[in-house]
Structures are given as structure tokens and as C-alpha cells.
């Protein structure tokens, strides 16, 4: 009854870069998971000018351009790494709060297309975590014209930085003669935390004294005040604690209440009370194949469920999604196996990251006025036997694009 799109077409057709379509596109799904907790059966979703204009249930498939068994909103990956290249991060200074990655993104890199094929339509982009404070992150779509204008959803969406050993690995005191700045950078976790604290204190003090402006200060102050969320990578328990204590110290000093998002918080499940108290959100890294992630942090399939049960806002992430078993949808599968309910899993890959990134007005659900970003599945999503068979982005079918008409 349903003609699902050919798998061959999915894996072999190129991802074209067409102009956004002004004409209508109609998508039919036996079940449309329009938002966590909401299922529309025999749904007909109408798209015009790249936005969703109509959603109704109990409809017939005959008038649809695209048909699928199930449909969800395009997935949002806030932990996405499109590149591991260190030329994305400015390491000549430990704290580069004003660095903005968006203008220097390589939109031709393969990682974007890979994410798109996995059903991820919106991602966060930030520098590689080699700096204490890497800079301002942006939110982008993974497909469409390879220009910033076409793909940028939100600039300056968060301040990105890191705790732990990734900013300090590679730094060593150089003995008698320092030959480069790696000898000045922090070499321990202690140093990294010190840099964070110094950055905030300095920004705060300069502002209070009325010092002349310098690059980065405004960004740090907006982070301090909670205007911009702070997305701190902290894999291990000790680093998560450090991040939370830092936020608490800033609040205690009256410098502001930060909105904390713990990135790659694999061991967040060990400190649920602390996280609840801090109102921090957690973005989990992909499930490690051998139980331990970077920084030897322990994470298992039930980590997401544990956080959810504790009431901590949790988002899932696939990082670069390289190789099978590592896609974002598969992270949701593991989380469900670990006990995360279906709706919470859907939230963790759509509405929660959209909310944390501040783009819920555009992406995350299938609703009137939202961007027409859809993933077409060949079965109930977030099951091992289900895969994405089509992706619509901004109203254009970019994967599995051949219509049935």
C-alpha cells in the first residue's frame, strides 16, 4: 500500500543544492510523530515556501508527493562535529570568547551530507574543544545551498568551552626556552578551571570599572548573565562538578546566573542531585563501543534514562556520526533500550536540543509555521530495524528526492 522510496536511491543519489521551492509539497505518513506525545495517524503534511502550513490526520495517501510509514521532525544534533581539524580553533590564546566559527565553516565538507542522510537537519557548530573557551557557536542546517546565508539558523547561539584535559593536552612547560605559546597554556585541569574563572572575573571587573572594551568581554558577560547559554564540554564526573561549581560560584558572587549546558556529559548520571540543583541541561555523547568514552568516562545505555528520571533535561548527540551504529537515531535506539521512554527519546533528539539552542521557534516539531524539516522513516523511528528513507529540508526533498508522482 505504501510505496516507500527506494533504498538504492537513498544511498546513491547525490544531494543536490537546489533553490528552496516555492511551490507546494505534500507528505503523507501512516504515523506522524509531530511532537513528543503527539501522534497523527494517516497524516497529510502540507508544505509551502519551506514552511509547514497544514497538518491533518485521517487523510488519504493519494494526493501526496512523498509517502512514508512514519515521519518525524528533522533531528537536531547539538553535539555535532563536522570537523576534527584544529584549524577551527584559535589556540594562540586560551580564552577566545569572541571567536566566531560561522564565517570559516567549510560547508563543502562531507560531514554535513553525512548528517543529512542520517536525518539530522539542524546542528550546532563550534570550534574543536582544544581551547578553554573556544568561542561563539552557531546553529545551521545541514543541507541546501552551501552558503552561510542559506544555512545559518542562529548565530551566536551559545558560548562554547571545555573543562577537563582536552584544552590542556598538548601543552607542556618547555623548560629553558619556550618556543611557542603552548608553553604558556594550562597544563592541568586546575589551570583550565583557573582560566575560566579568570576570564569571567576579568570581564566582570573591567565592566564594573568601566574599562575600555576589548574583544570577548561582551560575550563573556552575556554568558555570565544567562543571556547566552554556556555549553561546556565535561565528560567525567570531576569535570561536570567543576563546571557546576564554577556556575555556582559566579552566582554566589553576584556576577550572574549562567544557563549551563553540559556537553558530552557521559558521567552526569553520577551527580544527579548536583545537576538538578544547578538546573543544568546535559547533552550526552554517543554511546561508547567499549563502555568508556574520552576521559575514561563511564556511560551505558541506561544513562539517558537515569538522567530523564532524575528530571534533568537531556539531549542526545552523535558527534560526527561516522560509521554505522553511531548515527543520532541509533543513539536514541540505545537510550530506549536502556529504558528511556519513546517520547523522551524523541524529545532528546528534537525539541530538547532545539530549545537549548534557542531555535524552537523554527525547528523541532511538525507544526504550523515551523521550518519544513522532516525525516521519513521506513518504520517506527528509533528502532534498530528502522532507517531514514527520505529527508526534507526547508521544504525541499534533499534525500530520496524522487517523488511518487
Amino acid at each position: 500500500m505504501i510505496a516507500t522510496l527506494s533504498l538504492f536511491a537513498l544511498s546513491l543519489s547525490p544531494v543536490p543544492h537546489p533553490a528552496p521551492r516555492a511551490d507546494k509539497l505534500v507528505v503523507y505518513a501512516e504515523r506522524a510523530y509531530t511532537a513528543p506525545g503527539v501522534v497523527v495517524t494517516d497524516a497529510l503534511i502540507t508544505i509551502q515556501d519551506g514552511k509547514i502550513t497544514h497538518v491533518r490526520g485521517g487523510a488519504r495517501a493519494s494526493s501526496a508527493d512523498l509517502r512514508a510509514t512514519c515521519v518525524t521532525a528533522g533531528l537536531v544534533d547539538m553535539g555535532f562535529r563536522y570537523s576534527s581539524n584544529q584549524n577551527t580553533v584559535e589556540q594562540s590564546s586560551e580564552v577566545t570568547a569572541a571567536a566566531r566559527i560561522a564565517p570559516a565553516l567549510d560547508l563543502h565538507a562531507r560531514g554535513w551530507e553525512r548528517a543529512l542522510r542520517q536525518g539530522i537537519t539542524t546542528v550546532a557548530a563550534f570550534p574543536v574543544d582544544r581551547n578553554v573557551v573556544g568561542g561563539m557557536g552557531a546553529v545551521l542546517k545541514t543541507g541546501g545551498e552551501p552558503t552561510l546565508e542559506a544555512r545559518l539558523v542562529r548565530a551566536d547561539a551559545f558560548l562554547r568551552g571545555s573543562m577537563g584535559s582536552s584544552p590542556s593536552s598538548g601543552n607542556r612547560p618547555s623548560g629553558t626556552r619556550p618556543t611557542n605559546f603552548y608553553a604558556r597554556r594550562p597544563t592541568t585541569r586546575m589551570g583550565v578551571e583557573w582560566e575560566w574563572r579568570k576570564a569571567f572575573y576579568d570581564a566582570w571587573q573591567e565592566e564594573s570599572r568601566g574599562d575600555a572594551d576589548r574583544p570577548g568581554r561582551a560575550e563573556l558577560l552575556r554568558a555570565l548573565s544567562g543571556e547566552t547559554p554556556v555549553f561546556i564540554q565535561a565528560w567525567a564526573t570531576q569535570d561536570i562538578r567543576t563546571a557546576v561549581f564554577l556556575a555556582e560560584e559566579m552566582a554566589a558572587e553576584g556576577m550572574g546566573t549562567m544557563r549551563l549546558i553540559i556537553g558530552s556529559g557521559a558521567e552526569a548520571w553520577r551527580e544527579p542531585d548536583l545537576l538538578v540543583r544547578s538546573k543544568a541541561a546535559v547533552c550526552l555523547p554517543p554511546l561508547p563501543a567499549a563502555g568508556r568514552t574520552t576521559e575514561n568516562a563511564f556511560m551505558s545505555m541506561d544513562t539517558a534514562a537515569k538522567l530523564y528520571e532524575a528530571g534533568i533535561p537531556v539531549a542526545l548527540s552523535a558527534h560526527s556520526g561516522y560509521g554505522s551504529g553511531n548515527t543520532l537515531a541509533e543513539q536514541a535506539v540505545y537510550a530506549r533500550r536502556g529504558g528511556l521512554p519513546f517520547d523522551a527519546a524523541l524529545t532528546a533528539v528534537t525539541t530538547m536540543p532545539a530549545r537549548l539552542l534557542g531555535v524552537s521557534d523554527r525547528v523541532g516539531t511538525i507544526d504550523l509555521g515551523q521550518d519544513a524539516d522532516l525525516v521519513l522513516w521506513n518504520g517506527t523511528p528509533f528502532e534498530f530495524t528502522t532507517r531514514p528513507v527520505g529527508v526534507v529540508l526547508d521544504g525541499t526533498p534533499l534525500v530520496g528526492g524522487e517523488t511518487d508522482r
Partner: protein
Amino acid sequence: MRKLPIRSAFVLSALLASAAWSATATPLGDTVVVHAGEVIVRPGEVLKDVDILIIDGVIRRVEAGLEVPEGAKEITGAVVCAGMIDPWSVLGVQSVEVAFTAASPATRTADSLNPFGHEFQKKQALRSGVTSARVQAARRAMVSGLCSVVSLAPSSDEDFVARADAALSVSIGLTNPASGGTTFVVNPDGTFVVRASGPSAMDTFERIAQVDKVASLLASGRTYRIAQNEFVHDMAKWKEGIEEKVKELEKDFKKAKKDRDKEIEEAKEKGKEFKEERYKEDKTPQAPKFDADKEILAKAVNGEIPIVVEVHRVAEIRYLLEATAPFGRLRMVIAGGTEAGAFAEQLAARKIAVIVNPQARGASAYDEFDGHDAALAGVLAEAGVDVLIGSGGQTAGATRDLPLLAAMAVGEGMEADAAFAAITSGPARVFDLSDRGAVEFGKQADLLILDGQPLSTTTTVQTVLVGGRIVVEPKE
């Protein structure tokens, strides 16, 4: 290159199946007639306004006013010539095989060839007019083994390799970057050159020692073949001897039997061991132990297959000529021969062909190319040397530019006819490809239909036929 949108799995699989072979090929058995304004039968022999009749992939007629048989496919072209042959290529040889160094004389390039390899480069080469190539793996090994001649547009798996054992290849004194390294040496005047360093760096004596090794390998091949021939003689003689002896013994058989029985009894009585009388004819001549490498070397020494020697510098070339002089039947082909200009007369006298790669070299080229002379091809050809032009045996994509290399040689003084021969009839002759390299009766129909002279930059190759099948159609 943009991929075409694929509509369905079926189309995809059909395309994949025919991907290696042209989807528009005319099947074998068809008759094709080419009406040509000008046919270059072979360089220097041009016929005007003739027709070429091809049946079953073979040229049957080249004459004017041919009657076109019914059902024949007709093609018209301004200029028709033979498909070009690159005598120094690596199409189909993957780069790891090119860099392989543990080869021996019996290593066969044919065993490593991937019929689907270098698909894009093969298409590009065909479009340029190159229809066959001699390919070689393990170029940097001193002894690279046996090279092969391949068709760039085979009609099937079997057709792909035209000659599996086309020639034995060796190389002398090549810089091997894998084993050592290279350094930039900056000269006082600001130019710089690339030199080998580390274990790969060889001085002149080491390179000459390589020539010695090759010569001794050839000598061992010769010894092996001599031993084989001697064995054949010995075997024949032995058989003869046996027959004679048998005849002899038959005469006195009864007596001999009685004597023998007596001896057995005597021995029994005395408690001694009876020893059979041994005739010298009992001992069978021993065949020389089979040695795959020596088989090939023997073939080369005997002139059954040519030996291609890549050698560049004067010292090695001089010694090579000296060391190989005793092998009267050796059919040697020098590849590269950067500084061979000094030996033009000797090479011509000994009928040693030279495969020249006319490409200019920049400062980043290895030091064996330091003596590069752009006029080499012309100088050798003028002295009467059989000059072939090849694309260098290093990069698969270079075969595409073979006609340009020939044009370069002309620009530096080679006669145009000799340059065209260097990429058609020359390689065919040197590598025993009697079925290609010219447009005449009996040859395989590997033809190019062009809109101008083959070596001109502005000429377009419109149609290419390989074995009578159209493998390149005119561009729209």
C-alpha cells in the same frame, strides 16, 4: 565529475554491469565501413578518399570505392589512423603495485591487473586516441618482472590482456623514495634540485653494480637454457645408448642370464651380497631443476621476449651496452634513456629501441632526470634508433596525454612521421603486436576517426573503434 541521478536499482545494476565496457559498443560480428577523407595507413603512407571494411573486428579491405555490404554500419571521417599504443603506462595497475619492490623475473604484472581499475583514466585515454598500452608494475624494483599489453576497451574479460608476458622489465639506478627520502639541494645560484637521500641514495658504483646484477641474471638464464638444451641432447643420446645396449645384450641374452644366475648362487654360497652390475646407461640424465625466474630470463636471453631496461645516466648506459653485448640474441629496449643521446649510433647499430618520455622536468624531479634533453627523441631518431614515445610508467592519467607528448617531441626536432610511428607502429613492432599499429588488411580494427592530423592540439578525436566496436562516440 557529477554523477547522473539514478532512477532505480535495476538501471543501476545494468549500468554497473556494463560500466567497464562501453554501453554503446557495436557487438562483434557486425560489419563496419569507414569512409575516410584521408587514411594514415602508417606514418608516411597516406591514402586519400578510401573506405575501410571491417568484419568481425578485423580490417578486411582498405580501398577506394568499396561496395558497402547490406546491414553495415557506416561512419564518415576526415582523417582515420591507427589507435595509439602507449608503450610505457600503468593503467590498471594500482599504485601499491607500482611501488612494489619485492618482484622477481617471474612476477607478472598481468596477475595484479584490475580490469575495472582506472576506469576514468582509461576513458580519458581512449578519448585521446590511445587504444592499447604496455603496463608494468613494480617499476622501482630492480627487476620488475613481466609486463603486459592491455586493451583499453576490451569486449570482455578475456580480451582485456592482449599479451600477458609482453616483455621482461628491469630498471637501473632509479631513486626509490619509499626506502629513503629526498632532499632539496639549493644551488648557489638559487635553483634547487631534488636528490635522493638515505638508503635509497646510490652512487655511481652502486648503480653500475645493478647493471652487473642484471647481466649476471641474464647469464644465469642463458646457463639454464643451455643446461636445458644439453639435457634434451643427453636424454636423446641416453635413449639411443639404451637401445644399442639392449640390442647388444639381446644377442647374448641367454649367456648373460646364465652368468648372472651363476653369480647370484655364488654370492649366496659365499654369503656375500650380490651386486647388480651397473651399466652406465642406468643413470638417467637429470633435468635441470625448474626455476620460474630462470625460465623468463632464458626467454629474454634467447630473444623470445624483449627486455625493457629503464636506465637514465651515461655511466650506467655505457656499462649496460658493454655488459649485454655478449648476449647476441637479446632484444633490448631502453626506457627513459635520459642521457642516451650520447650513444645514439651504438643503439642504432645494435637495434636497441628507446622509449622516450619527452616531458620536461622541473627542479623537483629526481636526479636521474637531471640530464634531460628535450631534443632526445629527435636526436635518436635521426641517428636511426627505433624511438618509441611513452608516458613514463608512473601515473595512470598520463596515458591520456600521449599524443601531446609526441607533439612535444616534434616541437623539439623529431620528424612528425617518426613521432607518430613512435606511438603506433613502433610499439607494435617492438612488442610483437602484429595485429595492431597500422590500418591495413588483417590488423585488428583499432581506429581513430579525427577531424584533423592526429598530433595537432586542435584536432578532436571524434570516434574510436577498438576491435571494430565503437567505444567513443562523437561529443554532441
